[in-house]
């Protein structure tokens, strides 16, 4: 079209560049936050906080850089399908492992709750496999 290239066509899909730079600034801010929080030693809260920040960053990228805010519902459903499947994969897998106890059959690895002296840490370590469960 010979009409001005800066007409509504540009704004229909991409939004303004001001939004783009704001999102980029937000991503850098969240990066600083995730590195800073890592040094705070939050204990058990460390992982959920780090993942919360990562989800926020991914959300900004998906919504604005990948244009999902401007796409049709059909495209958004396609975009969501992979993540929903991933959620199911994680929910069922982790529910299984979280439910395992020391009484589970020996073939089932349970969480290692006690530390023990390292069997040959270093170059001359023992070649036998480390058992899944603390002895």
């Amino acid at each position: 079209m010979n009409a001005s290239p800066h007409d509504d066509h540009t704004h229909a899909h991409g939004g303004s560049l001001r939004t783009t730079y704001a999102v980029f600034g937000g991503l850098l801010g969240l990066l600083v936050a995730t590195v800073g929080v890592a040094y705070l030693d939050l204990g058990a809260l460390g992982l959920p906080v780090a993942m919360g920040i990562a989800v926020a960053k991914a959300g900004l990228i998906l919504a604005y850089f990948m244009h999902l805010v401007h796409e049709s519902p059909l495209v958004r459903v396609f975009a969501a399908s992979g993540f929903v499947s991933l959620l199911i994969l994680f929910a069922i897998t982790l529910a299984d492992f979280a439910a395992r106890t020391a009484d589970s059959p020996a073939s089932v690895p349970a969480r290692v709750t006690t530390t023990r002296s390292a069997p040959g840490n270093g170059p001359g370590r023992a070649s036998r496999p480390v058992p899944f469960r603390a002895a």
Partner: protein
Amino acid sequence: MSTATEHHDHPGFVAHHFDDAAQQREAATLGMWAFLATEVLFFGGLFAGYAIYRFLYPAAWIEGSRHLSVLLGTINTIVLLTSSLTVVLAVDAVKRGDRARLVRFLLITIALAVVFVGIKGFEYFEKFQHGHVPGPAFHLEHPYDPAVPVDQVELFFVLYFVMTGLHAFHMVVGILLFGVYTWLAHRGRFDEHYHTPIENIGLYWHFVDVVWVFLFPLLYLIAPA
């Protein structure tokens, strides 16, 4: 670009089996997202494996993570986020029909991607030097916690190399694709009417960025020393 059309109101870039440009674009966009959904699960299996073994061997995950460079990881994150920005700017340029600006931002994106892969390669090189590559030569010269079984730390590094390696492979593929698209853009293949391929390689690149957004805290930032 061919301008011959069999249908009166069809621009030349609309393939025969589509009603109009909008339908063609949505089909391509849907196809790209379907591909990215399979990519989410491709990486997702590795993330699930990571989650299981981190749950089983939490001390080994802390130990392994402390042998990675937070500084290099942070620099690479900034590089990759910036390359995502330049891709957005490239897509914006082509939507405005500004070919020179499109080519310029594609070239900057390629340069940033090469920097990322270069830093990643340097990190791998260091791991080889220090014996942190899984296999017969794997060992920890200076463990932070000598009580952690070294075999479990080796498992952390297996996942480190497979996950970052698969990610770096996607980066290399992206660099090659960007090279082809930059050439096509230079030749005038894309304009304000037809630019779906640029949008779709942008989606691919942002997806690679999203994967790294999760890899970075999970590998580098578990409990920095």
